[in-house]
């Protein structure tokens, strides 16, 4: 892969899709000016986060005029954005679209919908059902939307499918004021999570968080890119809109995987058999006979 990546750390308006669409076009203009190959927007970037009953009201179908016009911009730059997807059968998904060459290349529907603490996603959204990696002209990508990344199995599936980079659009409500360093406790968890995923999945991890407040809840930015060795190579500020640009490349991937060949040694079939045992899979006998 060789990809000049742009993280768009924006502050969407809550429930005002028209304004957010306009904003996306302006940010894409900036990314194109900066000669970026790929732009990443946060989770639910077209809608804002605390949607509640707005969820069904502001949802868009993949073939809607709004989405089509935005996707058309991808003739100039590949990009991923978030919105509420209204499916043909009237389910609503927390989705991220990856657009490239004027078409929708991939849609990831958020699988893990939190509904604990301040979260209410399980009440409003239908869950996605897969973590599928896809090929872009800039590399092989997997998408995890926010909570998806907290389940380590999600990133591991992208790892097994050979992802060069995991894109993580985020709208993370910040909390935890007792930390001794300058991050809210929830942000600290994100730093640790992304460092660990990048290091042990040996991929680029690109996290795009939003900023701004909704009903007193802060989304604290600090979008970042972790290299396949784990360390942060670029990061955005807290609480400010920011365009963060960084060049991703294959060399770092190769270096990490030569040094410690975790992908080569992953033993997916062993995990598959163990999962079958744990979940009482009816095909268990066949799986064991495969050995």
């Amino acid at each position, binding site marked *: 892969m060789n990809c000049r990546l742009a993280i768009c750390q924006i502050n969407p308006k809550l429930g005002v899709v028209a304004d957010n669409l306009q904003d996306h076009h302006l940010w894409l203009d900036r990314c194109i000016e900066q000669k970026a190959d790929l732009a990443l927007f946060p989770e639910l970037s077209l809608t804002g986060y605390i949607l509640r009953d707005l969820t069904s009201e502001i949802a868009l179908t993949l073939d809607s005029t709004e989405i089509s016009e935005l996707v058309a911009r991808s003739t100039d730059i590949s990009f991923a954005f978030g919105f509420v997807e209204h499916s043909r059968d009237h389910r609503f998904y927390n989705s991220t679209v990856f657009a490239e060459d004027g078409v929708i290349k991939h849609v990831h529907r958020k699988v893990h919908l939190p509904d604990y603490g301040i979260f209410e996603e399980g009440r409003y959204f239908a869950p996605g059902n897969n973590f599928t990696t896809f090929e872009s002209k800039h590399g092989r990508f997997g998408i995890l939307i926010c909570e998806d990344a907290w389940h380590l199995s999600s990133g591991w599936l992208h790892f097994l499918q050979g992802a060069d980079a995991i894109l993580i659009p985020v709208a993370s409500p910040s909390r935890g*004021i*007792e930390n001794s360093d300058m991050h809210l406790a929830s942000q600290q968890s994100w730093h640790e999570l992304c460092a660990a995923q990048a290091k042990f999945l040996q991929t680029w991890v690109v996290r795009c968080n939003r900023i701004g407040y909704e009903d007193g809840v802060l989304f604290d930015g600090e979008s970042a890119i972790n290299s396949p060795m784990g360390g942060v190579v670029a990061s955005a500020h807290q609480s400010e809109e920011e365009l963060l640009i960084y060049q991703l490349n294959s060399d770092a991937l190769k270096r990490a995987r030569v040094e410690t060949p975790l992908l080569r040694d992953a033993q997916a079939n062993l995990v598959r058999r163990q999962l079958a045992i744990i979940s009482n899979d009816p095909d268990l006998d066949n799986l064991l006979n495969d050995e």
Partner: protein
Amino acid sequence: MSSGIPAPPTCNVELAERVLVGFLKSETQRIGMGKAVLGMSGGIDSALVLELAVRALGADNVFAIALPYRESNPLSLELARQGADKANCQFSVIDISPLADAYFEQHPELNEGDNSEARLRRGNVFSRLRMTALYDQSAAINGLVFGTSNKTELLLGYGTQYGDMASAINPIGDLYKAQVVALSKHLEVPSAIVDRPPSADLWHGQTDEEELGFSYDAVDALLHALVEQRLSNDELLALGFEQDFIELIRARVQRSQYKRRPPLIAKVTGRTINLDYRYARDWGT
């Protein structure tokens, strides 16, 4: 209280300052407003909110108002003025005595000073008259009323519903009293205010801790263990909290839940406001 109970919750003061100032700025400006009114009691909570408010909106846009009754402790007014002077914002005084006395004249039972029920009712009347004046003043300047209730008093229900608990937005409602103290020192609230024993100034010589029957440090530690850490009774006892104290506080928190919620609405339709008609307040901004 037995010794050895946990320390009250701490607070990264620089972090808290950034989050709370950003909150005031965002939640004010997003609805097209840039000004704020707040009631200055002479105590630490309102002095802290004032410091946060001037950082968020600029001193010229913050209007600190003291609202004494003729029997209020003169020191309260003096400290309110000191807090406003330090913050360099506009300061005014609204004497609520004529308003309160006009009401008390019609309800003479409220004038029996030693009667605790009368004392409580008088305190609530003062608090709601102050609210009335603050909301009117906020309309006059096209601003918002900033709240000054901290998390400890909100959890204990130690406040007057639709009185001092009323506000448009509240930057310190998620900070325990000990965190309010730490942040106030960081923002250089005058030490005469920080060091003064907390008092609602409802009657002569009153202090919060004497009226409540326990110290803020002790109740902060317990509330933190109960609310943030969700500790069981056995775990609380093992930490050194006494059973009577645990039960007293649990009961207070539960009994005052109504004060922290909007009024109940009898449900008869399919979409009842706040039950299943659910939108964020920041909807559309």
